[in-house]
């Protein structure tokens, strides 16, 4: 839906790691629960403020959560790690 560049994100993985529902994450960030779904699916891009809030919430650098390039799947990262 967004007319700007697609921003890829790791929100579903980070949320799953912490056992959070979209609603719980939305409440923690002070946004509507449907907004989290829109961000996860890439329907809309987050504002800088929201991206920084998410980075602070997950205690990660913002580039670990959002990227202009697709993230490498964890399975491929694990496979390449085994090969080293």
């Amino acid at each position, binding site marked *: *839906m967004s007319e700007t560049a697609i921003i890829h994100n790791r929100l579903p993985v980070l949320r799953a790691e912490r056992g959070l*529902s*979209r*609603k719980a994450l*939305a409440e923690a*960030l*002070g*946004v*509507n*629960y*449907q*907004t989290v*779904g*829109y*961000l996860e*699916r890439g*329907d*809309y891009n*987050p*504002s800088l*403020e*929201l991206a920084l809030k998410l980075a602070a919430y997950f205690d990660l650098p913002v580039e670990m959560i959002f990227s202009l390039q697709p993230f490498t799947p964890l399975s491929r990262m694990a496979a390449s790690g085994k090969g080293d």
Partner: protein
Amino acid sequence: MSFYMRTASGRIPHRSRVSVRAAIIAVLAGYPAGCIVQLVTDHVALDIFGLFLVLVSVLAFFWVAPSYVQRIAGEVPSALDDVERDLRHRAYAFSYTVLTALAAAAVFYLAVANDDTRLTLWAPQSYSHWNAIFFGVLIYSFIMPAAWLAWTLPEPDAEDLEGEAPVRKGRARIWLWSLLAVGGMTGFVLARLISG
């Protein structure tokens, strides 16, 4: 300009995207259709039918009024998040384009209708004509941003719907709306009988 009807609990009631779209079509088509039917006919039955269409469009508006899309359009900005505020700006930009086009077309029509007596075009003259136009403009300006949102917002997935308020049994409300509709129609018939 828009309008949002916040529920007493503050939760957003579930409205399927299809039902919201159908209600918006009922508002956008029903109100002008009802007014035109009332304008062109002197027959009481058709007059009541015209009023019925207007009533349906008003009820449809109040169906949309507490919905998620209308919340984005009409809630105070401080209660919206970043994405919702961005969506509102886009919805308002669309509404501005449509409403200015409609206003320009209406002014052009009125200019021709008032100036060229050979065409004998209809032009609003009485208080009831201007009253109908006023409420038409009001209802269109209220619903137009929600219309854009209802057709452009992505469908929520199953996980999104987990956060929505549970669907309540609407029996009592259907009776309330029916009572209001019957009251309105009775008032109209009585007014016609007394004035006729």
